[in-house]
């Protein structure tokens, strides 16, 4: 909480002639449709609360009309919330007077728009320097800063073009450069890549991640594309009908969607690119230590109904694997556990993406061992789970993947 950059607290935004009067009715649980029918007011956002950490990319996702734009416009008070507070660095910006608000917008926060919102009577460079111009930064200085930012977005050489002479992707780069030129702490991006075609969009996503790597802004990013949300978001908030229905990391949302709406939403996402080994591994019930010997190993396997078991040392570092066949053979031939130990185990790091594990799973004869950085065995992944795209344990989810 101490380091949350932005905190919004029970924020609601109602559109209509007497927005405040509608709040109690929403509180009583009336739906958005009922409210519209009875009072003619539109519930844009209702009772949204969230905290956004410094330096994270926070994605707000939801279907069209779910209130994403309405919410993001509250962060720089393009929409004034009907109710609730918004704290940025601990200050409630809803209570700002107009000069404080102006200063806040000039210094702390900048926005990138879906349709770019560029000034088509100004050249690219003049667009980028706009934010500095209205802060009365000297012409020379703001030109220089604008040039630097034009370079950051890879548009060097386009200084004197007009926005209309650029492609959509390039125009949005100008939009991004214009926002960055002000060196804001917080970057608001309302579906910035939605108007671009898929190839350019992917390129821009990677570039945004790249820029973020260097600049470490706090980014609030809106999209209705789940893949985009999970690719970019450190955390994701899902909205429906003006309400925030779940907030969490992409992994937690994938693993435990809060309701059917979200399950539906994430149905067609490519999980293998989001889930890491850690998320799909099974925690071992049975583990055998080297000094336990073959008999214990066989007993463990029989009790747990498994055909092989991992062998670890005292600090749980992986030593190898024994199969039930080898173990029984070994007892007959009076060998030790060490003799029949198979060290040809494929190990994967616990933060490797499932997508990257697939080739390894194809080659391996045994379950994959999942280890943490220091070599400690954390769990294992059955090949069939990776290959069939199954998430461990949740058998019912396999129905989604029958095709």
């Amino acid at each position, binding site marked *: 909480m101490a380091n949350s950059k932005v905190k919004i607290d029970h924020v609601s935004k109602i559109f209509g002639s007497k927005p405040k009067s509608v709040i109690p009715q929403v509180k009583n649980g009336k739906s958005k449709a009922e409210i519209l029918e009875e009072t003619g007011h539109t519930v844009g956002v209702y009772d949204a609360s969230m905290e956004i950490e410094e330096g994270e990319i926070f994605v707000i996702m939801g279907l069209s009309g779910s209130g994403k734009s309405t919410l993001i416009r509250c962060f720089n008070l393009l929409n004034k919330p009907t109710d609730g507070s918004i704290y940025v660095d601990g200050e409630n910006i809803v209570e700002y007077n107009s000069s404080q608000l102006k200063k806040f917008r*000039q210094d702390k*926060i*900048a*926005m990138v728009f879906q349709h770019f919102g*560029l*000034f*088509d*009577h100004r050249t690219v460079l003049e667009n980028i320097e*706009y934010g500095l111009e209205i802060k009365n930064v000297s012409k020379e200085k703001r030109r220089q800063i604008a040039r630097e930012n034009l370079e950051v977005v890879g548009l060097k050489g386009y200084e004197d073009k007009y926005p*209309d002479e650029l492609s959509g992707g390039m125009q949005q780069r100008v939009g991004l450069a214009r926002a960055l030129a002000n060196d804001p702490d917080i970057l608001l991006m309302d579906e910035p890549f939605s108007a671009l075609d898929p190839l350019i969009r992917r390129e821009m996503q990677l570039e945004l991640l790249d820029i973020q790597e260097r600049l470490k802004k706090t980014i609030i990013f809106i999209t209705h594309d789940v893949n985009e949300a999970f690719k970019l978001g450190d955390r994701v908030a899902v909205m429906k009908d003006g309400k925030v229905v779940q907030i969490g990391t992409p992994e937690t949302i994938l693993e435990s969607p809060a309701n059917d709406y979200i399950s539906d939403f994430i149905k067609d996402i490519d999980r293998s690119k989001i889930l890491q080994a850690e998320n799909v591994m099974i925690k071992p019930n049975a583990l055998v230590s080297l000094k336990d010997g073959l008999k214990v190993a066989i007993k463990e396997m029989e009790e747990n109904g498994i055909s092989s078991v991992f062998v670890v040392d005292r600090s749980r570092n992986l030593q190898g694997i024994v199969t039930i066949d080898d173990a029984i053979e070994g007892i007959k031939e009076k060998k030790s556990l060490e003799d029949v130990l198979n060290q040809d185990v494929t190990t994967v790091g616990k933060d490797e993406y499932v997508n990257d594990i697939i080739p390894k799973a194809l080659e391996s004869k045994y379950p994959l061992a999942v280890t943490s950085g220091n070599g400690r065995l954390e769990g294992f992944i059955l090949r069939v789970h990776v290959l069939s795209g199954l998430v461990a344990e949740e058998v019912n989810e396999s129905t989604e993947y029958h095709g």
Partner: protein
Amino acid sequence: MSDFPAIQSHLGDYVSDFVDFLDNALAGLFDFIFFISSRTINGIEAFLDFLPWWLFLVLIFLLGWYFKSLWSGLLYAFFIFLVGTFGLWEEMMMTISIVLSAVIICLVIGIPLGVWMAFSKGFSTVMRPFLDAMQTMPSFVYLIPAIFFFGLGNVSAIFATLIYALPPVIRLTELAIRGVDPEVVESAQSFGSSRWQMLTKVQLPQALPTIMAGVNQTTMMALAMVVIASMVGAQGLGEQVLISINRIDIALGFEAGISIVFLAIIIDRVTGGVADRFQKHRRAK
């Protein structure tokens, strides 16, 4: 057939009383308008008088060339030359002075009013019926209060012209400002622009092409008033037309009339060219 019952209203009298009242109450204002208008017109006229005739031709040529094409420039200069050969050079200068003064005053008054209407729904609602009335009322009607307030002469002509030609620039300014892409306005807002910065750096420049279309219309309407305005003593080409009517002088009527047409063509094309130029870098959507 039955007669209309003996009910009489005296709306006309009331208006007349009201105009009397205005003349007394707002004497200072009218003096001010008189002062400004006559200053403007005298200034412009003095300037045009000071220009040698050939330099004026060159100027017209350059305007046509810059905003349209080389051939247009030549053609416009030739038109002006023709008017000179009709012996109407001085009258033409007078007419240009009146039209220019009226247009300048129209812009100075009209653009701020249009901006205000764009920002205030209430003001816009109040203004709209007045603008409608100004545009649809027969233009002769303005001549009466004009004489009343300013006497016979050029100032009255400008006043009558103003009332007639003001609405398009006001309307189009309002329309243009309201029509600026809301996302563009929001993006300016999101950077913390003040109201004034927003207006001067974003809204007006964005609105300029449409406003220029208003300027073009206003200018044409001012020119259309030239003959009517001569009834309250405006000098220039209109006066010549009026004289030719009185004398049934076809030759003079034609020459003065065609001179007005020439002016109209030149002014329309040049202001249109200026508007196009502002449009140039605009989206082709």
